[in-house]
């Protein structure tokens, strides 16, 4: 009897006199000091249904205000504007693949939620998107530890070429201090790269030997390969652009060919 009363009063308090879900979320949001939208987030719930097994994702790029991700069947992309807790997605588009009915349904619902959303509330794991106090979806920040990034630069006095590849994006920059050209990574390319990484002793690339050093007399642009893995960055010694150490030559070739294809 005592138990029933306790439960009952708890429910009563929570629903009618205690703070609402929305107020609790507001409370948590105000406790978060670092409210930045950058990098990859995984979608956990959609209309309070757990969909974490479907691997939907959303990737924010704070510098370009672009957004992209996987919406259950297709990849989507677009832009966003945000100010404090106001958030709006603009001109969302997707690739045009058809999948099974379940995936299509989730995708439509997810994209609709993005279009409707006008409020973002942060919590310690990620954030929720809402419209008029109603939660549409919640996400958690992808673990930084698992993110791999590969950066290739070739530079000389008159030359600059920087390519950054990660699971989501390929960015290429031909002018020092300019605006990079960004495209989403293709899944098969990223797969090739991660396969290649398995046979490279990433932690020790700083000890590789450059087979030639024409860069010493300007006969080649100076190239560097940087690999970020498990939150740490490993950097190769300088080598001639066009003639990398053999241990990483296939990887460098792949990265260069990926970047050429997005030009």
């Amino acid at each position, binding site marked *: 009897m005592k138990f029933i009363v306790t439960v009952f009063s708890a429910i009563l308090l929570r629903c009618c006199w205690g703070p609402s879900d929305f107020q609790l979320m507001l409370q948590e949001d105000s406790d978060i000091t670092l409210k930045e939208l950058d990098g990859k987030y995984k979608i956990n719930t959609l209309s309070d249904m757990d969909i974490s097994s479907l691997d939907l994702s959303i990737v924010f790029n704070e510098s370009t205000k672009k957004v992209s991700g996987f919406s259950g069947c297709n990849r989507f992309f677009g832009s966003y504007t945000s100010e404090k807790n106001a958030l709006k997605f603009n001109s969302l588009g997707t690739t045009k693949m058809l999948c099974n009915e379940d995936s299509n349904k989730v995708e439509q619902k997810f994209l609709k939620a993005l279009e409707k959303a006008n409020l973002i509330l942060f919590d310690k794991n990620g954030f929720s998107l809402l419209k008029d106090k109603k939660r549409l979806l919640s996400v958690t920040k992808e673990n930084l530890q698992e993110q791999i990034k590969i950066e290739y630069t070739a530079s000389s006095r*008159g030359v600059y070429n920087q390519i950054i590849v990660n699971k989501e994006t390929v960015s290429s920059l031909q002018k*020092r201090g300019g605006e990079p050209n960004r495209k989403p990574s293709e899944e098969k390319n990223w797969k090739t790269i991660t396969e290649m990484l398995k046979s490279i002793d990433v932690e020790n690339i*700083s*000890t590789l030997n450059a087979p030639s050093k024409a860069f010493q*007399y300007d*006969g080649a642009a100076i190239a560097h390969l940087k690999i970020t893995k498990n939150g740490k960055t490993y950097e190769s010694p300088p080598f001639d652009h066009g003639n990398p150490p053999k241990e990483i030559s296939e990887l460098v070739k792949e990265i260069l060919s990926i970047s050429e294809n997005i030009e």
Partner: protein
Amino acid sequence: MKKVFLSMVAFALIFTACEDEKNDVIEVQEVDMSDFYVYTDSNNDLSSKSANSKEQFKNCFTMDVLNKQLDANPGLAKKMFDVEYHTRQFIASKSNGKGKPGGGSGGGETDIDVLPINDGLGAINIPVYVHIVLPNANDVTNSQVQAQMNVLNDDFSNPNTNQLPSGATNFVNDATNTGITFTLANTFRYNDSRSSWGTNDAVKSAYPPITPSTHMNVWVCNIGNGILGYAQFPGGNASTDGIVLLYSSLPGGSASPYNLGRTATHEVGHYLNLRHIWGDGRCRQDDFVADTPTSDGANYGCPSYPTVNCQTTDMTMNYMDYTNDACMYMFTDGQRNRMRAIFASGGPRATMAGN
């Protein structure tokens, strides 16, 4: 730790392997070559530490260890070692110092001042042949060629200390007059429809150098891939000796901000045995010049002063950095001594100076 141990074993092996030759070596003067590198990277340079004399390096180590990386040109490392050895020995003999020119102290901002040594070489003049190879070779005019010669002569003689930022008091002592001048001997024009020549000396094979032992040959052409120019260190193959310049890098050309003729100054620096000021590697890899600060990479554009790397202020205004033409305006005394040493008797360009 394991790595250190392995390195020590490798070191010991090389050392004992060299022991046989050691007895035959007559050391003329002690020259410390421990920091020298050609193709190897600084952290793999242990091998050269066993070579505190020229002969040991020749007999034992060059051929065995370095060759693996020098498949294309096996004689080059040895030649470069000889050039470096001669340079250090000559400078040391004239300045009563130890041979090893390195420098760029480990930490902190200490001003290392190298004095211009009295090397007895006097004024050095280099006669220059210019080969213009373009679809229309007249696109580069005689007055541009003359302007380029003027830039070289000015850059190699004028310390330009008035251009140093007011805070750069450490560098005032370093700026130098190299005592090296250039005279245009002749200009050759070749109309050639080839649109880009790359950096593999193709232009030199097509239009071979003329008497490279007594003249500096300069090819002016389109190189391609954004490359502004490239050089060859002294001691290399005579048939490719000289520098190659992007036609639009000459004064008045279109390669802004690299169109004031300083690409030529930089390449001639290499031609006269200078390395990039950052030593082409990390902090500890040196350019073999004591009065240039250490750095871990090139500077670009027009850096503000001070630009600090490896705990010292970079000399971004040095011709051997990668900054814009307008923002580089000095060689140092140490670089001067190093360049001039190659003209001394026994040096790789001795005949050019009549020695």
